[in-house]
């Protein structure tokens, strides 16, 4: 993925955050969305290691050794932040108090199944909190390249990898397009400028419904 495409994905993803939302942004790309949110939007960012009200990353020189996010980055907090233990942290998640989570993916199926935690025999970091985030956040948005490094589609008819959670994904923001998971399968919602419907279709491993002409995101 080019840094331009990456930038575009993050800018597009930032539009999903509504003022006042409580959100959890997964390790990797999702964490970086926050830097692209407009000044009129304040969200309560939750991190599963025990904080609600995260601010920007901390400068190394100003880092507090006891204050990190779930990815291990030193962070700052906003006024109104709270700290809590891991049981309370996941209570917030499982109770359905997250308006939104953004996660990465190995595969997303057209029924919303998500696989993002294990490639058997190859990469087994463990589930972390992804299962609970995926299963219980009110809205689950996946940020991912449209295809993997080998060019294989990541949006598929059925996941081949072990699932993180069933029927949980609402929207996928890729480096090419915005795709929703609807009752009829994948639905093309927006195209990134310069990308054609044909390219998205060719790179999607399942039928793509296009109920309306997709909007173009610049």
């Amino acid at each position, binding site marked *: 993925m080019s840094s331009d495409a990456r930038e575009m994905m993050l800018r597009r993803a930032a539009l999903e955050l509504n003022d006042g939302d409580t959100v959890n942004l997964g390790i990797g790309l999702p964490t970086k969305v926050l830097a692209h949110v407009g000044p009129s939007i304040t969200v309560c960012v939750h991190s599963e290691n025990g904080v*609600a009200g995260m601010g920007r990353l901390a400068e190394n020189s100003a880092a507090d050794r006891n204050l990190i996010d779930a990815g291990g980055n030193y962070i700052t907090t*906003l006024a109104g932040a709270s700290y809590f233990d891991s049981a309370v942290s996941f209570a917030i998640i499982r109770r359905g108090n997250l308006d939104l989570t953004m996660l990465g993916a190995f595969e997303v199926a057209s029924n919303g199944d998500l696989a993002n935690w294990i490639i058997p025999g190859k990469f087994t970091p463990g589930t972390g909190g992804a299962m609970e985030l995926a299963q219980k956040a009110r809205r689950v948005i996946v940020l991912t390249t449209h295809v993997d490094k080998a060019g294989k589609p990541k949006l598929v008819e059925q996941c081949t990898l072990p699932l993180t959670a069933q029927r949980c994904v609402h929207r996928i923001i890729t480096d090419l397009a915005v795709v929703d998971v609807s009752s009829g399968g994948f639905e093309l919602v927006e195209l990134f400028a310069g990308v054609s419907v044909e390219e998205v279709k060719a790179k999607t491993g399942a039928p793509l419904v296009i109920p309306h002409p997709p909007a173009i995101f610049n």
Partner: protein
Amino acid sequence: MRNKLTEIEEAIAGIRDGMSIMIGGFGMPGTPFTLLDELVRQAPKNLTIIKNDANEIGMGIDLLLKAGLVEKLIASHIGLNARAVEQMNAGRLKVEFNSQGILAERIRAAGAGLLGIVTDIGVGTMLQNGKTAIDMDGVTALIEPALKADYALIHAVQADTFGNLKFAATARNFSPLMAMAAGTTVVEAEEIVALGKLAPDEIHTPGPFVQKVVGLRVISEAYDVVRRA
């Protein structure tokens, strides 16, 4: 951070006939007397009330019982309220008794997005009746389902505008658990402070659990030390 300050009328207005309401407090401390007054004024009926105890005559949820608004009470102990016992014995009030700590855990389980807990408390007693028993490594255990509610009414000593809460001494009791377990958690606070005034390490209930915050204009006599003979 969302500003959750709400006028008391509006905070309670969503409570409809037949809803379930958790009410904080163990004895007097932590009982949200002001929210209860407003609930009595708005008078929704056939309520299911979930509270540790039934307070005493003339106090707290006794006002709901007196007004005839309560169909069912889920509690651990009602012995200090003769009206509650009388209504129960007369068949006008359904009462479900839970062991106190299991009541707390059932509420917490709902607040933690769990479906239930597994416990050996109550095995071999009347409280086992009607419950699913399973074997856990040779021990008989009961499945106690999570207990949620439409609303929770909570008293806090301090709240910020996002709904971060602090409780005082034994007024904490069931409040943080109920605040987690309800669809809508309404908090009355003795003091409303600005965002950032509560130390993040000292918050008892994090803001994401709270929907509406009501500032108390006066701390009425109901909150005072009760001087018994």
